[in-house]
């Protein structure tokens, strides 16, 4: 589904990603973790071309992301993305947030788009909020809407960039529950998160990044029981004791 081969990126002299190589199969859930500034966000934003990269290759569902001839907008409409700060459109009602890209990008009609939107709001338990505006919802609710908005495009895979780290602790689980549900249904997912409980329950594999490199890329059992690198061991020790 997603294949990365020796992806590198730099800002001037600063190397953000170095030779990142990994494969994500259909239906897999990959958790990406690592210290702040290690390049996790950059890595998953390369997958849908939100960040350009200078060398290497990323293939998503047979399409090369970096190739100049690739229609990036079209590619992105098939890859869902959820951001740390939700990024709902504040000037639109919740249902319009869910409909707008269906209408303008997929060319669905108003009726189809709304029906799909309502169905997904039901699914994340927010049907009654459809006519409200994002500012009237709690952080956890907004993030569930953001997930529903991405799902409305019928994506072939989903990218998450720290979807719970801007949330108050009591709202983390409502979002993780939606993600867990999604994983159970077989959605292919790449999640940057520090929620190790989620990783232990749901992940197929864990990628650990440090200074722009993929340092560990292993099954979750192998990662949690005997991480090979010292950096990953330190990271785990720190994060699990919190």
């Amino acid at each position, binding site marked *: 589904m997603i294949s990365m081969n020796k992806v590198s990126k730099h800002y001037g002299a600063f190397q953000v990603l170095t030779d990142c190589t990994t494969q994500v199969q259909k239906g897999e859930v990959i958790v990406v973790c690592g210290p702040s500034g290690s390049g996790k966000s950059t890595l998953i934003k390369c997958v849908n071309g939100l960040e350009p990269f200078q060398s290497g290759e990323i293939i998503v569902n047979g399409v090369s992301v970096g190739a100049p001839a690739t229609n990036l*907008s079209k590619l992105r*409409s098939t890859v869902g993305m959820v951001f740390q*700060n939700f990024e709902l*459109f504040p000037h639109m009602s919740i249902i319009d947030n869910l409909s707008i890209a269906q209408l*303008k990008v997929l060319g669905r009609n108003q009726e189809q788009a709304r029906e799909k939107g309502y169905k997904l709001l039901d699914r994340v338990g927010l049907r009654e909020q459809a006519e409200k505006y994002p500012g009237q919802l709690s952080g956890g609710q907004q993030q569930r809407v953001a997930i529903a908005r991405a799902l409305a*495009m019928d994506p072939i895979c989903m990218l998450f960039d720290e979807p719970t780290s801007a949330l108050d602790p009591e709202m983390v689980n409502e979002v993780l529950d939606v993600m867990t549900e999604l994983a159970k249904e077989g959605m292919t997912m790449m999640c940057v998160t520090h929620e190790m409980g989620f990783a232990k329950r749901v992940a197929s594999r864990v990628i650990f990044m440090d200074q722009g490199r993929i340092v560990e890329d292993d099954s979750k059992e192998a990662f949690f029981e005997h991480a090979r690198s010292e950096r990953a061991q330190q990271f785990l020790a720190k994060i699990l004791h919190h």
Partner: protein
Amino acid sequence: MHDFDWSSIPNALPFLWDGMKISLEITLSAVVFGIVWGTLLALMRLSSVTPLSWFAAGYVNLFRAVPLVMVLLWFFLIVPHLLESIFGFPRGSDMRLSSAIAGFALFEAAYYSEIIRAGIQSVPKGQMAAASALGMTYGQAMRLVVLPQAFRNMVPLLLTQGIILFQDTSLVYVSALADFFGAAYKVGDRDGRLVELLLFAGAVYFVICFTASRIVRYYQNKLKTA
């Protein structure tokens, strides 16, 4: 001490109202064209295509560095001649109103584009990223997501600029076009009551602009609390 005599005003009211209509026409047209052209300039300025952003930067800096009254004079004196010789417009046709509108619109666009550019930049970067991630093109993301939010924040500034523009329309007197100020001047000059007419005109400008800026402030407060 001056003996005030206001008697020439009541009879002149229809003429003054015609002048006010010209002032308002210039203001509204220049605001609309200025915002449209200013938005395009702002988008060019922010674009990654270097020639476009240079052109916009050059345009804005040029118009902000010359006095408005000079721009107006260019438009009154030079542009009609150009149009005559290029498009064969009949010589001597009165183009003062359209020249004034064009001059104001092109001049104001430079100011509007700076307001709009700041407005676009005040929308969080993540909004563009989220719109793109949903598969929207750059144009769709701008039009549907970024610009509506930018304009919402900018409305007070754009209106304030419109109020300034309304006052500045009085500069068309350089072309002897009878806008409100020009009309008041003409009446005062004719009746030898210039002081009264100019005081009256000043009071009218004050009432209109003061009321308008109160409305802007009210809207601004509403935005803040929303």
